[in-house]
């Protein structure tokens, strides 16, 4: 009798648990589908720009990088100067891990003529947050297999988390609502990826000692940077690696930038090091803060870089003729 009661208890428990799991699964799939539709329907915001880069962009020239790409490279200016259509595919706070994933999705569709990769002082520093931020790629995980390798870098159980249809849209509910709630006039005005900063750097110029407290380097990021360059070489894309200006008094040399320059040099890729170039650093009014140019500064900078690209007797960094 006791055994029968026990068996009934187990059966009832398992049945209830099963029903609960089914309810969760049904709600998860339904809400996930709604979020997916709403996510890809966004007309503005950084997610909409990423979707545009991943799915639609056809520009001849693309810019990749963090906020130092988004705020410093103005595609309108670059288009005027070079005669090449341009889109800024950078994303605030992202590292080379994200840029490489987005580049791969674009290369699946077409090969741009020119790619500009913007570098940061902490580009290759070990930082767990850079891996967390790869969650921006989650909505593309199912539709774009090219991003999967990078998403898996987030952690060993990312695949399990992705069994949920809602998880890719974690913390995106409000941005999705915002991205969908625009009027007719604003519709289809996604922009070219550039965001201008209107403020002016108030100062003072601080000293950064690169020789002290050096952060550990991340070999995964360095290898991804290498892969980025190799991918461009294989496709015959003219790649330029650029380090936009900082307004600081540097002590010593930044390790990430040294490595970026060395690798670029070894691979025959032009590297424009403007990190502490006096052309910009002597004019404080061109900066919004110590690492970003303002509207005026970014226009001058974009013009300057475009001129360098246009006048560059482009060394053959594609490697095609050598191979």
């Amino acid at each position, binding site marked *: 009798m006791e055994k029968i009661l*026990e068996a009934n*208890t*187990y059966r*009832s*428990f398992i049945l*209830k648990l099963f*029903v*609960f799991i089914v*309810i*969760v699964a049904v*709600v*998860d799939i339904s*809400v996930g589908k709604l979020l997916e539709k709403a996510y890809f329907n966004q007309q503005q915001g950084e997610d909409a720009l990423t979707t545009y880069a991943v799915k639609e962009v056809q520009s001849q020239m693309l810019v990749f990088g963090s906020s130092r790409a988004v705020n410093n490279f103005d595609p309108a200016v670059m288009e005027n100067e070079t005669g090449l259509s341009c889109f800024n595919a950078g994303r605030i706070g992202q590292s080379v891990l994200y840029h490489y994933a987005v580049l791969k999705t674009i290369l699946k569709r077409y090969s741009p003529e020119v790619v500009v990769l913007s570098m940061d002082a902490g580009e290759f520093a070990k930082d*767990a*947050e850079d891996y*967390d931020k790869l*969650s921006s790629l989650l909505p593309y995980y199912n539709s774009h297999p090219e991003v999967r390798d990078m998403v898996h870098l987030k952690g060993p*159980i990312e695949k*399990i*988390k992705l069994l*949920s249809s*809602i*998880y890719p*849209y*974690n*913390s995106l*509910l*409000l*941005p999705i609502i*915002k991205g969908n709630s625009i009027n007719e006039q604003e519709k289809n005005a996604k922009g070219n990826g550039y965001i201008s900063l209107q403020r002016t750097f108030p100062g003072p110029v601080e000293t950064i000692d690169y020789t002290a407290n050096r952060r550990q380097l991340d070999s995964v990021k360095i290898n991804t940077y290498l892969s980025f360059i190799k991918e461009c070489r294989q496709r015959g894309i003219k790649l330029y690696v650029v380090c936009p200006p900082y307004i600081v008094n540097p002590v010593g040399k930044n390790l990430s930038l040294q490595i970026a320059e060395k690798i670029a040099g070894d691979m025959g890729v032009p590297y424009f090091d403007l990190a502490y170039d006096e052309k910009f650093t002597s004019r404080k009014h061109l900066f919004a803060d110590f690492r970003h140019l303002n509207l005026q500064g970014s226009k001058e900078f974009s013009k300057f870089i475009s001129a360098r690209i246009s006048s560059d007797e482009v060394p053959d960094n594609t490697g095609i003729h050598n191979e």
Partner: protein
Amino acid sequence: MLFNSFHFVFFFLIVTGGYFSIPYTKRWMWLLAASCYFYMAFVPVYILILAFTIIIDYFAGIYIERSAGKRRKLFLVSSLVANIGILCFFKYFNFFNDNISAMLGIFEFQNPVGNLSILLPIGLSFHTFQAMSYTIEVYRGNQQAERHFGIYALYVMFYPQLVAGPIERPQNLLHQFRQKIDFDGSRVFSGLKLMLWGLFKKIVVADRLGIFVDNAYNYHAQQSGAALALATIFFSFQVYCDFSAYSDIARGSARVMGFDLMKNFNRPNLSRSTAEFWKRWHISLSTWFKDYLYFPLGGNRVPMPRRYVNLMIVFLISGFWHGANWTFVIWGGINGLFLVMGLLFKKQADAFWKFTRLQKFPILYAAIHISITFLLISFSRIFFRSQTVEQAFAVIKKIFSFSGSIFKESAVMMLYSFFAIAFLMLVEMRNEYKLPAFTFSLRRSFWVRSTWYALLVILILLVGVYDGGQFIYFQF
């Protein structure tokens, strides 16, 4: 192994499944092995420290019971010295050494002893206190000494409460390891629901608020006073949700297997005085200090001035228990002062409230008291959150400069944070005041309850923060 990790999900499923699959007489072995694995997932070698204290206290318990008079006391003192000695060595050595160095420095002497470069064994303060409560209770004759070494080891090491409590008492927990516990579906669901609520508090509330708090406190020099004030309020909710989440998951996972662990939090944010707050916050530690320190010092049966001194002693030690840093000592001291002031000025305060006639409006009266208590407790937590005393004073100075705007973070981030707090408080107020609205989780219908808990899962997936990491109280 963190409670909010997938590693723990697999561990929990395997341990619970195994627990109900084996005969109840052998279950202690299974739980002990699982608890060892759980502890060793952090720093494996530290299990030796745990084994050392377990052996000492196991034999101390038996010898205390067998002995009488001075010998009995000697065994108790030996056990306490061993436990406190280990705690002092691992947790406080560097603190004392730094202070000695600073003092010697005043007289231009150099401290010849260097600091230790060792990691603090996880949950050391918790399981040391739990072990001490055993020998003290045996000494007092409230608990028989446990003869079964495995069961005693399990009492100290029981994985749900091993690293962050609740700090159990032997009378409540030891006998449960001998009971024949049958599988009970409704109890399992009740445990799982408690775990789910804990997970919600950790992932949706605590870790979300932690983003703003960390930014504000880590870069306090760049923040406005208003932003720091908001971060301090947020931290109050964060630390509550973080710690009570751990307790909920601990109690829930124990309940699934049929164990009843003591309640550690009783909606402290709805306390109407700081004295009431300390009856609702970290109850297992507060009662530990009350039973083993405050009462032996004389408790409430001593003249008032002595009672104030006793209260201050208890709170200063409680602060020091939390961490080897003056910030925690000051935090404890401030809370002790709140209680002393509450006693000192009770008559005046009562007269004041009578004068205001606010008692005629009970809701408003309660709201004012709750708000004042919450703000006082939040203020003291500036020291709890700050890395150094200097940082705490810098934060306070900035807050009282009443400068700057609040919203330094993105609007989206702030909206999520306010939503999380609002949801939490709605549930807490419903439970506290038995509000009729918002009671889906209490409905009898299985479907309504299931849908409510499914929505909780969906909320965790939708707005949870998955990169929050550690529980705050792990460091203690």
